[in-house]
């Protein structure tokens, strides 16, 4: 770990009716690192994210962000502290130009505090900042991409738009919910340097992923969930060598193949 832990998950348990979605899951995330969370479908990855970000209240356990308890706090307060997340199912304003989608996060108190512009509310300023953010994230200003109507943008750009939504809040931590899914090989190839750039700018990242190969290229550590429990935690190589992980994922041949290319 690079710095002290920025996020601590302690014994989180979540039950829905009779179903135990998460069972005493604990882990820590160091400041500035990239932690990958993987696991087969239904292993509780999304529930973990929801518990951390306040969209779901854990049945028991604690979540600490920079040492402060955030368990059960409402999502907007947690986001206001700098802990942000993307959504797997993106719902931008398809009929508006891309940069207009950033109006909403830029409207928030946090953006006004940290955005570096005098948030007097003048529409023009928000537009400019939005366009700047999009340019940083790869929307080519010269080709007028930020101004394109959102419905015309390919998936890769939409995923970046989701990240831009978080960036508008000058976050300290971003939880990326399957940012690689639905992308073509070339789109993923251009996404990886972006992730690395985000890390270099000081943001801690937690990445929930199914695309293991790409994840292992960027992740410092990996955590495996299965049936709501933490199975194993460690570097990519350690995790893949663990036979329990192969069992959990069934297709052990696939895992071997990934291992060979990692």
């Amino acid at each position, binding site marked *: 770990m690079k710095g002290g832990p920025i996020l601590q998950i302690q014994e989180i348990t979540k039950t829905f009716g009779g179903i135990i979605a998460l069972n005493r899951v604990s882990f820590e995330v160091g400041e500035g690192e990239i932690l990958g969370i993987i696991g087969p479908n239904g292993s509780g990855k999304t529930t973990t994210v929801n518990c951390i970000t306040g969209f779901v209240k854990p049945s028991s356990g604690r979540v600490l962000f920079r040492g402060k308890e955030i368990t059960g706090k409402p999502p907007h307060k947690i986001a206001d502290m700098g802990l942000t997340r993307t*959504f797997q199912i993106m719902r931008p*304003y398809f009929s508006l130009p891309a940069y207009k989608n950033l109006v909403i996060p830029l409207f928030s108190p946090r953006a006004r505090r940290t955005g570096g512009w005098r948030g007097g509310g003048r529409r023009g300023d928000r*537009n400019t900042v939005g*366009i700047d953010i999009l340019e940083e994230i790869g929307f080519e*200003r010269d080709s007028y991409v930020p101004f394109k109507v959102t419905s015309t943008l390919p998936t890769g750009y939409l995923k970046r738009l989701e990240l831009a939504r978080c960036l508008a809040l000058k976050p300290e931590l971003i939880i990326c919910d399957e940012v690689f899914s639905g992308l073509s090989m070339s789109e993923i190839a251009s996404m990886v340097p972006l992730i690395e750039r985000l890390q270099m700018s000081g943001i801690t990242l937690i990445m929930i992923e199914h695309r293991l190969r790409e994840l292992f290229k960027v992740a410092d550590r990996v955590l495996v969930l299965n049936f709501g429990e933490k199975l194993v935690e460690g570097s990519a190589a350690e995790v893949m060598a663990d036979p329990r992980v192969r069992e959990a994922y069934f297709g052990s041949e696939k895992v071997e193949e990934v291992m060979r290319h990692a």
Partner: protein
Amino acid sequence: MTTGTQQRRKERIDRGIKVRTEGIYALMSWRELAYLILPRFVIIVGLLILPLVIFDMYWQRVISIVCIYALLALSFDFLAHHVGLVSLGGAFFVGVGGYLSAVLNSVFGFPALLSIAGATVIGGIICTLLLLPCLPLRGVYFAIVTLMYPLFMARVIEALDILGGTDGIMGIDSLPSAWMEQYFIIGMLLLFLFGIRRLVNTDLGLVLRAVKDNDQAVRASGMNITTYKAFAVCIASAIGCFAGASLVHIYMWAGISTFALDFSVLPIAATVIGGSGTLVGPVIGCLILVPVSELLRDFGTLRIVFYSLSCWPSLSFAARG
């Protein structure tokens, strides 16, 4: 760090777009201009001319009533289609605003215009506070609570015999002159109409629409949804209270019927007929429905049946959407 030249280059690229977003239309043909201005012109002039054209006193009053309903329909449309809160009880706002203005006028002695203004502001706050508990909850609860409040209020007033009980509060001043009565209301209607339209097109309006379409994203961006909903409810209820306050000064009386179901149901029917989401549509809908309902007055309460059944077709059509 961008250098001076890089900054200027960016600005040059952005300029074309900025101009358009800030609403300055540089090169526009006459036709484009007409397309834009004409409908608004027609509405504004049309409404302003009406009192001059219609001489029958009864129908002059109908115009004022149309405007009152139009205000309610505007407030319903705004809440339902731009914020996502379906208010089934416009009568609640009308009643609160009406009684407040009546009290301010007859008990505290404020002149008519001042008590209308007071009722609008204070009424907006009171209504918002009373609706606050159901704002964090699912939309259904808002619909239920707004539907029930006017029904409850009417019965509470009747049972406790406060605020004039079943007789109502009488002896309320009317507005200074007949002309004023007409133009004041028409003017305020136009003001609110274009005001809300502008609001909806600002960034704040976009946030409100996001509250309707994608509230998870709004929450995840660090904003408290309840606050924004409360803000919208405050505006909508202030408009409704204004309508109620004006009504009370037109009729010079405030009673339990100020909470009448008409005020809840007709605005919804008008919105459905005139075009939901457009903000102007509901006004037009009222222009159609209110005179029709006046003509149907002989049928008494059957009118309400008519309104409610007229909501029907669009509900069925919406189902397929």
